[in-house]
Structure formats: C-alpha cells, structure tokens
C-alpha cells in the first residue's frame, strides 16, 4: 500500500511539488496578513512571516527525500549526463558499442542455436519423460551368426546398434517404462497419385503415437490387432501429406493409398506440424506411418537388431534408475541367451539429448568459444574506458576538489558504463538476429531443430544478463580508478594528465588478458583446422568425381524375389550404358557412405571363430564405376550366376585382419553352418565405406548374380560419366521409367556431394571457430594498438627529449616495441597455459589430432605475434617521427 503510494507519488511528482508550494505560499500569506492586522507594515509583515516560516527550500528538499525522489532524480541526472558525454564522443561510443555488439551478437546467435537444439523441450507432451533406447555390442568384432543393419555409431569401445524387437517385451517387464514403441524408417513408393513418388515412411508399433503422446487429429490411431502379420494394411498420414497430396478433403479417411503397389486404408491424419523423433526439425518429414507387423520369426530372433525404440518413463522414475534396471536385465538375458545376447546390453538417454547427439558437443564448444569472445570484448571496452577516464582525470579531480564525493563520481562512471552496456545489448541482439540467419544457413543438415533457432525469452534473458554483467565488469575498472584520484596530485600535473602508474598497470594487465584469451581461441581454431585438413587428406580409396548415385527401391509386391530385382537392374545397366556420356554403371545394395550391412561368417569351415565383415552385393560394373582397383585374382563377372560356384571378392583389410595377412584367394566362408561355401576369387583395394572418419573394415563383395547369397535387396545405382554427371540425371531416369513407369528415382546425388555432406558438420565447426578466432584476434589487435598509441602519446615529451639528445628513430621504435613485446610475450605465455587447460574440451571434435598438437600451438603463437607486432609498429613509428620542438613545447 505504502509502496504503491510512493510509486504513484513518483508518477505525480510534479503535481505534488506544485501542491506543496501552494500550501506553503498560502501559509506565508495568511501569516503575513495576521501580522499586518497586528500592526506591522505590509513589507515587514511579509518578511517576518518568512523568517518565522524558515527556509522553505530546505523543507521542500526534505520532503523530496522523504518520497524517495532524490535517488530517482540523481539517477536521471547521471543518465542524462552519461548519454550527453557519450554523444559528445561519437567515435569512442561507436567503437565500444560495436565491440560489444559483436561479442554479444555472436553469443546470442550461438546461444539461440544451443537453445533450439538442446534446451527447448521436444514438441511432445511431457517430453522430459521420453527416452531413447538402443543396444550396445560390448565386443563389436565378435557377434556370432547375427546380422545387423546400418551401424548407428560407436561409443566407448562398445558399438551402438539398433534394437532387436524380440527383446522389447523384456525391457517393458523391468517396470521402469509406461510403454515402449519401436519405429524404423520404411520408405515406400507411392503410385496412383500423379507421378510415382518415393515417400519417407515409418513402420511403427501400434502404440507409437500413445508413447509420444500425440494422437491423430482425424480418425484414430493403430489398433493392436492391426500390428500383426497378415492383418489389413492400414496407414496414418501426416497433416502435410493430407493437405498437399490428398487435397485436404474430408473424404481422406475413406480413401486408400497404393504404397509399393499394395493398397493401404487411411485410418488417421496426424495434427499439423507433427514430426517423428527421427526427423525432428529436418527438411525431410515422415509422410506416412505404417504398422510394423513384426513376423513371428523376427520376434523370436533376439540377434536381429533392426529397430529404433522410444519409451516413456513411468512418472517418478529417473533415467539412472531405468538404466540400472536395464543393465541388470541385460545381464540376465546374456546368461539366458548367450548366443544372441551374450555381448549385448541395453542403454538409454533422454530422447532430447540423444537427438542432439554429436551436435551438442560442437555447440557447447562453440558456446564456450563465444564466451571467450565476450570476455575479450569486455576487456577491450574496459581498456577503452580506462584510457578515456585517464583523459577525464582532470575533470574528475576538479569535481572532487569542488566537493564531489568519491561515491557519486564512481556512480556517475558506472552509469555511463551501463548506458554503453545497454546500447551494446540492443545492438548485440540485433547483430545476433542477423548472425542467426547466417548460422542456420551455414548449418549442416542433420543438426536437429536448428532451423527453429530464434529469439525467445531464454535468449533475451541470456543476452540481457550478459550485457549487464559485462557492463558491471568493464565499468568497474575505470570507476575504481577514478575513485583513486588524488585531486591535489592530479591538479598539479599538466591539464592533459598522465594516466598514472596504477592506471598503466591496469591497462597492461587488461591487454595481456586480451592477448591470452585470443590465443586460446586461435589455438582451438588451429586444432580444428588441422583436424579438418587431416580429414580432407584422407584417401577414400575410390574415385568420387564424375559419379552420380541414385536410389531405386523396387517394391516387393511387383518384384517379389531377388531374381526379379536382379533382372531389373541388369536390364537397366544395359540401357544406361547405351546413354551417350556414360562411362560405367554399377549396382549395389548401397553405395559407400549410404549404409550397408554386416554378417557373421566362419572362414574355411572354422565355426569356432566367427568374424563379422561388412557385406555388399554388387554387379561387375561396380568396381569400374567407383574406380576401385583389383589387386589380385579376378573380377566378379557376368558369367558368375546362380548356377555357378558361389564366389566373392574381398578387400585387403579382410586378408590383414581376418587371415593374418595370408593370401585370401582360395579361402572360403559360410554365413550359416550349413550355408554354401563362398570361395574368394579376388582382392580389391581398401575403401572407406563409412566415409573419411571411419576405419577401414574387412569387406566382402558378393556377386549380384548369385542372389541366394545376400538377404538385402539391390537398391543403389551408380553411374560414371565423361562430363558433369548432373546433366545425365534425366536421361538415366527416363531409362528407369522405360522399364517401369511407376518406379521412383530418389536420393540422386553426385558422389562428391555425398562425401562433402559427411564432412559438413566438421566444416561448420571449423569455419565458425575460425571466424571466432579472427574476431578475437582483431579485438586484441585493437587493444594492443590502442594501449600503445595512448602510451606513445603520453610519452611524447620524453621521446622528444630522447630525439633531441640524438636518439636515432630506430632506437625509439625499439623502445616502443620492447614495451609491446612484454605485453605480447606475457599474453602468449598465459594463453598457451590457458589453451592447454581448455582445449581438452575440444578433444571429442578432433580427428586424428591431439589437443597438444604443437603445429596448432606454434601456428597460433606465430600468427598472433606477427599481427601484434605489426599493430605495435604503427604507434612505434609515430613515436619515432616525433618533432622534438613540438613535443617539448607542449609542456
């Protein structure tokens, strides 16, 4: 109540002051009139009334203080004064505000990305209880006669794989989860609605939507009985699919879709904007959801790791508790089913963290780096403010001599700093907004949700807090400095005022800090650059130029067996070969960097030692198309068919790792104890199937013509061309449609693009850190230049005397450079120590480069030193050119 009244009074301040004055005037008038009636002359009466009243101004001030107006008034005064001082020095103001805008802007942009990718909750109800579950092979090179799809990634010596649906019921039995759902990408060909299309689809268990907590907006979700082999084929489509491909009509729920030539009845339409976790925030959204309908065979086979799992924790169950329960269960399963579960265990993580994945590490590193930039910007502004405060020493001492307290003086300077910080904050948010566009444009595909980066309350709060903190930090130094002024000493020295020893010390410390901080960033950038160039130098083992790859997934209904698919691709290869400009054409299950499969085998019938090479079924043209040279033996060729002896070609790593370096030709392998023996007839060069970062693994190339050897369908076609492969895409597609007009051609990319995309994330990190380091170095240079220029200005008369006494220009330059050298050397030493401590956070981002890589350190130190010396040379030469007469006259 009182507070409200005070605030209201503040609002009505002028009115209240007028009212008070009126009251007092009335009082004086009435008193004067009374005195007059008592016999005084009018003039005397007025005077006597005023004397009796006392000093009205003092009473008014007292009342002002009473209402709390004084503080407000002083703040306004300081603020107005501060703004006026800044407007009077536009150059200074522009530099400081720009420096802050840069620092805060970079931070705002990076933080908004961190916020979008890692902090913001996923768009599912109570998403903090959603977790991702996977299985880990604790002995990845020894997994028995089991096969697995694309290997998802590896962590800590154990290899992460997808989940075996057979284990799901056991996981649910731990009681930690409300429910678990499985999903897997299941792209399908859509026909009967215009041109044939390849849809991104997902095969999900019936409870998938209820686990995510989002049910269809129209129609219904899947029923348990629909998620069984042989059940009616039903589909749920996305809102976007309904709008764009079905015209958004109300009749959609009564329609059917022809997917892979099989009719599916639409039973539900998801709400607008719904995205499945696997492609959250990515451009390619899932359009149709189908029931997974796992076969009885699959549900009985614990060794088939094939699906992704999302689960919802029971309320109150922590991730750690669920993890512990799963570990115990996995140990039990391993004992119970040693053949399939012996080396496997289940692991979980919050779905949000798991989706952010590798991006989170690089984003945290970038956030750390941008934090260093803010520090440097802070130091720089503090430095500038101190130089300015030194110039205003005279002003300060005059004010102090006239009775200004130290506290008001400090408050005045702090207010000025906060005005700068506020301006910097606004400019920083605007800069951040711009940088954010650049950031999302540069961001590699695959960082989930980064497109959604934008301003929200978190970003604003962080920017504002940072600005306030920086304002306080950089405002402190000059304010404290000013309070140390001794007016007597200061007034005694020349009006221009020297900075004083303590001031010079402060600025030296700040500059050293700046050099050190920017060196840390430079070392970090150097490490990433080294690591990136190492990566780029990795030889893939095949030729990527002038090759185009595309996916042609044949629907099982129209191409029911491997033989039919083989025939299609053999016809297609013949036709494509005849297209002018085509040099070679080959088919495989999957082209390099597009996944693959692996399988346990026994070599030469030794079933006691099962090994696990990667497999690939290829047509004879594959090797020529990708430029993989044959080292020994013979190629696969067109004469190898289902009726001839099963054969395979292996790579060098196969011989090295699985045959102890022996010549593989003549050895045999089997995928099952009673499966046919496959003879090795040739050895080809090693290639890095998984991309530049992957190790070379033992690899077996099966003959596409011997279709009973491989369970995975042929799907990828690659074409080597004489010219730009892009120009032949239409011609190749026409050949596909000449054979089957309903067959979509998708995922068309040149091999160069595919390789490039695989390094996109590293390029992004490296580029950003390089930009950050450049900004840091630029700021440090400005700092060094500023300090030296100022110090040369201060020492003009001294330098003038030296010149007058015969010092050659070289000596003067040396004098200034020595001062710079001390700054730079101290900064470099501190920076190297700091970098040594901080770069270990980059370890996970480096490729075959140690955090202590001396090249990076030497490069960073060398670069920084050279640039800093150049920055120092400018003021040094100015010092050397000083005219002694002019310099001495200034005194």
């Amino acid at each position: 109540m009182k507070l409200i009244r005070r605030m209201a009074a503040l609002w009505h301040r002028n009115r209240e002051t007028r009212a008070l004055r009126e009251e007092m005037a009335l009082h004086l008038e009435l008193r004067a009139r009374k005195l007059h009636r008592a016999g005084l002359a009018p003039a005397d009466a007025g005077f006597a009334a005023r004397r009796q009243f006392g000093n009205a101004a003092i009473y008014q001030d007292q009342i002002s203080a009473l209402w709390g107006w004084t503080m407000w008034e002083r703040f306004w005064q300081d603020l107005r004064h501060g703004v006026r001082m800044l407007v009077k020095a536009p150059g200074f103001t522009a530099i400081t505000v720009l420096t802050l805008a840069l620092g805060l802007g970079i931070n705002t942009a990076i933080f908004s990305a961190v916020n979008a990718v890692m902090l913001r909750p996923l768009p599912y109800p109570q998403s903090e209880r959603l977790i991702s579950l996977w299985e880990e092979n604790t002995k990845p090179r020894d997994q028995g006669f089991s096969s697995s799809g694309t290997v998802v990634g590896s962590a800590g010596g154990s290899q992460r794989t997808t989940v075996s649906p057979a284990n799901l019921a056991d996981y649910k039995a731990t009681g930690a989860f409300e429910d678990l759902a499985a999903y897997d990408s299941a792209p399908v060909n859509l026909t009967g609605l215009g041109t044939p299309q390849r849809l991104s689809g997902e095969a999900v268990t019936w409870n998938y939507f209820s686990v995510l907590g989002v049910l269809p907006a129209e129609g219904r979700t899947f029923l348990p009985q629909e998620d069984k082999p042989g059940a009616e084929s039903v589909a749920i489509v996305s809102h976007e699919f309904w709008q764009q491909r079905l015209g958004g009509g109300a009749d959609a729920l009564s329609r059917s879709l022809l997917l892979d030539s099989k009719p599916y009845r639409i039973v539900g339409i998801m709400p607008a904007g719904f995205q499945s976790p696997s492609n959250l925030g990515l451009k390619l959204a899932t359009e149709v959801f189908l029931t997974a309908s796992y076969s009885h065979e699959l549900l009985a086979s614990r060794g088939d790791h094939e699906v992704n799992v999302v689960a919802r924790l029971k309320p109150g169950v922590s991730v750690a508790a669920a993890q512990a329960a799963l570990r115990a269960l996995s140990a039990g399963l391993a004992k119970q089913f040693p053949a399939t579960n012996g080396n496997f265990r289940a692991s979980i993580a919050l779905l949000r963290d798991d989706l952010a994945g590798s991006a989170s590490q690089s984003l945290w590193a970038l956030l750390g780096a941008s934090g260093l930039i803010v520090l440097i910007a802070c130091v720089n502004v503090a430095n500038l403010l101190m130089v300015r405060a030194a110039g205003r020493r005279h002003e300060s001492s005059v004010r102090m001599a006239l009775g200004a307290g130290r506290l008001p003086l400090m408050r005045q300077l702090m207010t000025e700093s906060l005005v700068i910080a506020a301006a910097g904050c606004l400019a920083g948010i605007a800069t951040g907004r711009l940088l954010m566009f650049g950031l999302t444009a540069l961001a590699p595909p695959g960082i989930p949700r980064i497109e959604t980066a934008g301003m929200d309350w978190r970003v604003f709060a962080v920017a504002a807090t940072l600005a306030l903190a920086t304002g306080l930090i950089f405002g402190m130094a000059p304010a404290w400095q000013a309070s140390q002024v001794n007016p007597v000493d200061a007034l005694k020295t020349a009006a221009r005022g020297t900075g004083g020893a303590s001031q010079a010390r402060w600025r030296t410390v700040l500059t050293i800090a700046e050099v050190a901080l920017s060196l840390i960033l430079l070392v970090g950038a150097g490490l990433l650059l080294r690591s990136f160039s190492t990566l780029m130098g990795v030889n893939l083992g095949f030729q990527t130029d002038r090759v185009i790859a595309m996916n042609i997934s044949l629907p099982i209904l129209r191409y029911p067996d491997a033989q039919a698919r083989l025939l299609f691709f053999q016809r297609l290869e013949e036709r494509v070969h005849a297209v002018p400009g085509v040099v070679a054409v080959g088919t495989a299950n999957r082209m390099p960097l597009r996944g693959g499969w692996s399988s346990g085998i026994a070599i030469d019938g030794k079933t006691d030692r099962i090994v696990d090479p990667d497999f690939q079924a290829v047509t004879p043209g594959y090797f020529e198309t990708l430029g993989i040279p044959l080292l020994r033996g013979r190629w696969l060729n067109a004469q190898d068919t289902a009726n001839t002896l099963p054969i395979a070609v292996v790579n060098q790593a196969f011989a090295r790792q699985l045959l102890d370096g022996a010549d593989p030709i003549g050895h045999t392998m089997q995928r099952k104890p009673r499966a046919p023996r496959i003879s090795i007839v040739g050895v080809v060069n090693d290639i890095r199937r998984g991309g530049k970062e992957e190790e070379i693994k033992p690899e077996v190339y099966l003959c596409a013509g011997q279709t009973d050897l491989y369970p995975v369908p042929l799907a990828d076609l690659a074409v080597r061309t004489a010219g730009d492969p892009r120009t032949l895409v239409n011609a190749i597609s026409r050949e596909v449609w000449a054979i089957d007009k309903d067959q979509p051609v998708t995922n068309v990319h040149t091999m160069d693009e595919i390789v490039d995309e695989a390094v996109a994330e590293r390029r992004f990190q490296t580029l950003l850190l390089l930009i950050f380091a450049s900004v840091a170095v630029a700021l440090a240079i400005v700092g060094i230049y500023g300090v030296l220029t100022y110090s040369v200005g201060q020492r003009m008369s001294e330098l003038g005397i030296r010149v007058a006494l015969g010092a050659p220009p070289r000596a003067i330059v040396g004098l200034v450079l020595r001062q710079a050298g001390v700054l730079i050397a101290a900064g470099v030493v501190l920076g190297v120590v700091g970098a040594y401590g901080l770069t270990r956070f980059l370890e996970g981002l480096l490729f075959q480069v140690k955090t202590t890589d001396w090249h990076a350190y030497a490069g960073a130190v060398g670069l920084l030193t050279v640039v800093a010396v150049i920055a120092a040379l400018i003021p040094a030469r100015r010092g050397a050119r000083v005219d002694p007469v002019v310099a001495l006259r200034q005194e």
Partner: protein
Amino acid sequence: MSESKQREGIPPGTLEMLILKTLSRHKPMHGFEIAEFILETSSGVLQVEEGSLYPALQRMLLKDWISGDWGKTEENRRARYYSMTAEGRKQLARELDRYARVSEAIAAILQPA
C-alpha cells in the same frame, strides 16, 4: 539528509504528537490552522519554525496516520485539509502513553521524596 532543522522549543519527535493531538480534537484543518492552534494553545511558549510542519505532515501522510483532502477556505482559497485516520488515533494513544511514562519518570527524579 538530516531529519529536521528545528532549533529549540519542542523536543524532537514531539511535533508529530502535537499535530495528532490537535487533529484529534477538531474538524479537518489546513497547515496554517494547525500551526496557529499549537502556537495559541501553548500561549506562545512552544516556538516552532513553522515550515518544519510540512515535512512532518508529509511524513505522517506516508505513514497513513493522517489523510489530506483538498478543499476551500472561507476566503475561497484552495487548501489541503488534514484529518486523523484510525491508524493515527492508535499512534496518538501510543505516543501519549509513552509521553506520560517518560514525564512521570522525569518528574520522579526531579521531585525528591
């Protein structure tokens, strides 16, 4: 920011009690009337710098002991008329009680038994 500049006459803190007492006995009064009343009732013994009345009034307004409403004087001049609130009445009782105890104690010391 010293509290008040009253030189002599009344002990510090007493002014507010006097104002409250004055307002408790009469209809709402404006500043000059209050000053006049105190001066006349004490037969001119209590000397107060009249201006000090106004910070005291403002302080009491803030503490909710009195309320101020604008009205017209007999000569049709605008003036703020102060009147006592319930809170002010309680405060007056407290002050009087305290004053009574203090002056009793002082009297006991000054008049030897």
